């Protein structure tokens, strides 16, 4: 939910910017090093516990993964994938959650003013009070993250523990991570750390290692180290994510067209009236009704 203490950079369905420009907060980011994630799921439980999310009903279906996808009440899920690169075998584990895009597709798609906000520090958050439960955010997200809660009709997703971050704590998942594959801090510093780690991986022969911080969405508030950076899809990440064309087309093209055409119709009709109207019935009062006139036409 929108916190008073945090400066808002942009807000869904805002007519004008809600950005006050008073305070200058550094962009924060979560750092995920998939190369040292051991898939222990401590982050999953920490997320549930901090955010008071209920226990999930799961069943064993032949995987180590807790459930197929994140849910409206399960925001943090490690995805396990077995892949076979050209040489050898890899069991990839990536913690999936809201990526806190710099250009959030959910925010772009959201029609409810202030229901989705992006704070100055980059965290993308939902205000359930303003969320109208239309679910459009789901179709705006290139990472398939926002979840519509059937019943309460509210969208929910990872908040990057904004309530913790606001008071100077790291997100719960980061706090719980035993290996340090999760870090939190200023994005610029984390990007430096990431570059160093990628350098190590490249020196170790993983020439395609990279930092996943996709420019298509202006970069993300969750940066991810991938050993196989040329294959983000192996980790369940889109190769070049961007706000979906349909959403951009809708917001950027269809909306103006709509406004213009609606206005044009009204103006046109007024003009038409001035030019031609009104078209009053003719006065046939002297006519006996014999239809002469009609026949003549």
């Amino acid at each position, binding site marked *: 939910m929108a916190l008073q203490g945090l400066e808002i950079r942009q807000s869904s369905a805002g007519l004008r910017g809600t950005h006050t420009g008073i305070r200058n907060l550094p962009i924060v980011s979560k750092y995920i090093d998939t*190369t*040292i*994630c*051991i*898939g*222990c*799921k*401590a982050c*999953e*439980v920490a997320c*549930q516990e901090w955010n008071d999310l209920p*226990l*999930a*009903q*799961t*069943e*064993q*279906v*032949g*995987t*180590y993964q*807790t459930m197929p996808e994140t849910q409206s009440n399960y925001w943090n899920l490690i995805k396990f994938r*077995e892949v*076979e690169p050209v040489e*050898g*075998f*890899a*069991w*990839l*584990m990536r913690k999936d959650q809201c990526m806190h895009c710099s250009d959030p597709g959910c925010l772009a798609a959201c029609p409810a003013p202030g229901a989705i906000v992006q704070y100055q520090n980059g965290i993308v958050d939902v205000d359930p009070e303003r969320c109208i439960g239309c679910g459009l955010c789901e179709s705006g997200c290139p990472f398939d993250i926002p979840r519509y809660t059937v019943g309460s009709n509210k969208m929910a997703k990872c908040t990057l523990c904004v309530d913790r971050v606001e008071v100077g704590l790291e997100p719960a998942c980061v706090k719980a991570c*035993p*290996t*340090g*594959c999760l870090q939190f801090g200023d994005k610029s510093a984390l990007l430096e750390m990431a570059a160093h*780690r990628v350098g*190590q991986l490249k*020196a*170790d022969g993983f020439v395609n290692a990279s930092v996943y911080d996709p420019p298509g969405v202006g970069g993300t508030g969750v940066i991810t180290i991938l050993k196989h950076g040329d294959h983000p899809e192996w980790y369940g990440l889109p190769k070049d994510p961007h706000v979906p064309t349909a959403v951009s087309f809708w917001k950027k093209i269809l909306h103006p067209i709509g406004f213009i055409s609606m206005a044009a119709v009204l103006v046109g009709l007024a003009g038409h009236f001035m030019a031609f109207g009104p078209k009053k019935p003719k006065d046939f009062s002297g006519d006996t009704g014999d239809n002469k006139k009609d026949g003549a036409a």
Partner: protein
Amino acid sequence: MTNGWVDIKNADVVLVMGGNPAENHPCGFKWAIEAKKTRNAKIVSVDPRFTRTSAVADIYAPIRPGTDIAFLNGIMRHAVATGRFHEEYVKIHTNAPYIISEKFSFNEGLFAGYNAEKQEYDKTQWAYEADPKTKAYSVDHTLQHPRCVFQLFKKHIDRYTPEMVEKICGTPKDQFLKVADMVTSTGNAKRVGTVLYALGWTQHSVGVQMIRGAAMLQLLLGNVGRPGGGVNALRGHSNIQGATDMAGTFEILPGYLQTPRAELVDLKTYLEKVPPKTLNDEAWASMNYWQNYPKFMVSLLKAMYGKAATKENDFGYEWLPKVDGNYSWMYIYDDMYRGSSTRAGGTEPAPEGFITFGMNPVGIGPNTPKTLAALAKLKWLVVGENYEIETATFWDSKKTEKYGGLPSAQIQTEVYQLPCAGFAEKDGTFTNSARWLQWKWKAVDPPGNAKTDQEVLARIFLAVRDLYKAEGGALPEAVLNASWAYTNPASPDLGEVLKETSGKALADIPDPKDPTKILVKAGEQLSGFGQLQADGSTMCGNWLHSGVYTQAGNIAQKRDNADPTGLGMFHNWSFAWPANRRVMYNRASADAEGKPWDPTRPGISWNGEKWVGDVPDMKPDAPPGQFGAFIMNAEGVGRIFAPALADGPMPEHYEAIEAATDNILHPKVTSNPVSKKFKSDKDLYGKKEDFPIICTTYRLTELYHYWTEHTAALNQLQPGFFIEIPEALAKEKGIENGGRAKVTSARGSIEGVAMVTKRLRGLMVDGKPLWHIGFPIHWGYQDDPKHAGPLANFLTPTAMDPNTWTPEFKTFLVKLEKGSGDGTPRT
């Protein structure tokens, strides 16, 4: 652990074998990750399954379950053949130059001295040879003598060529060589490597020998005693190290002192026979720290019997129970089941009652039907637990029928469940794998009538003592003379117990350097085991833990994270036994002159007057060269050849008791010749013809033993039992991922969800494909029905290691079929 958790960060190579720390020790494993991040260290994972450790390892090599000895011997052969071992270290710090008796031999899979009838070795045939002149050890520092340890060792491992390793382990040669090259890259002064292992080594019929292999490898590479090195056992439970230290098994007293045997009739005999001795004390300069054994033993007796223990009555030695049979727990259940004890003669009756705290015999023992049948023969059973565990309801045939449990009507055992506090509901210490005794504070009160373990035990003890006082009984002295000097006898304060464990002076202790001064005043806490006395003037419950509670207070509560060494030693954080030493055998971290092998990672170094750095594992002012680096070994050096174990001085590849294939090294001796099988009608062993697939069992990050099956938050993360099956095998059997699979061993069969995976693959063993599958152990019949699963140990055999009697849970034989869907285990 010889070293410690934090110390792993100092390693250049982390060999993980027989363990899966990423899953089972995730918090400790962070130090391996730290090494990777800060030193660009390489993690090597050798495992039958591609685990979550393998997922973050730099090198992974598959291995057939149970063949780790061949693999380790192969690495050592590679090290010697390519010269990639630390020769200087080997010469000064190991027994490589020591000459072994002429009687020693190794032929066709058997070492000298084998008694086929008893299935035992006569270990005297593996002894060191005495020098004719000095009567001390005969050594050849050139390592050329044909009977010196180095030559015997070289000959022994010479058979384990990369090709042979591939034939036995199924590890493709190129992958084996990658591992061998990486591991042996630490065979020098510049680099250090560590070995992490856990139950993946201990739970084999050759488990101790696997660990021996690792110890030899690390000595050969010069990695023992050095920061970032060592042989590191990752203990399975938060306090299992503490349990072992405090006499967790029948053959030891606290501090690894030996439990007296019947022939050691009095203290004098005991102290003559038990402590290790050098061949000739006068001619051999050795610290042989065990020469202080009498001090430890007498102080222990004083702690046990207080004022009643006097010099005249051997400090109550007579009242200690003497063992003359095997009381490890598989034998206890065997006794129970057969109705007689394994004591000499076998005529003693089996136990009629049983008290179990903090364990779940039905879950943790192999061959569940035998355990159930054994418990059913008891008159009474007391279970102290915070959940109603499987053992507490073993009589309920509705639950146990499918595991071969008897009908409830036929069971006369009276079961008492005592509600006990959970770990967070009591204070006390945890001793972790790094030997750190860390005090923990109670987080919440136990619910309802639940009591702490010490209160339950104290109340039983006081009631029994009252009965003894009133009615007398067998050996009353042991009970009536037991010291019980606690402020609240019915619920001893664990701080007081820790004080007792750490030890105090009962009389003024004079300073040995200046007898006119008093070192410790009567009644004061001792500062360490160096102050213990053999005359009854000190008491100490466990010499190894001495120093944990001094005049300065409870050292286990120290939480100073200053690290002046920069090596993660944290000397002011808790207390590490022995003597707050963080790296054991740290004298070996320096060369003959006392200079550290690697000045950037010094363990200790000689500054001309004394040893500085870590707490030295050496007399602090003994100049280099005076004593050998391994002060707990009488000969003073590390053992590449260990004439001490039950099944040989050097590890040899044997197949599991349920052997999946012939032993290609020596077909006549397939399995460990010293590992005994049980002979009751419930002890069934499968043959490879009937059960062609190897099966292994393991644990998961998300769950803890048989305990968290009661914890909903963890059940959601791993919602139920599953069987991991290689893709090609599943295809052959028509089993689909998420479908049902049925696994059958000679003991019974269980069913579960199939997890068809690429992480397990069949291996080519001596030209033939061999499959292995596996499943985790965490379920039973007392868990949440939504997350229920079968008892994994229903399928495991009563096979064991001959040194520790640990069951062989990691390698047994099964057959695999598509499941029928009803999921019922069957005998």
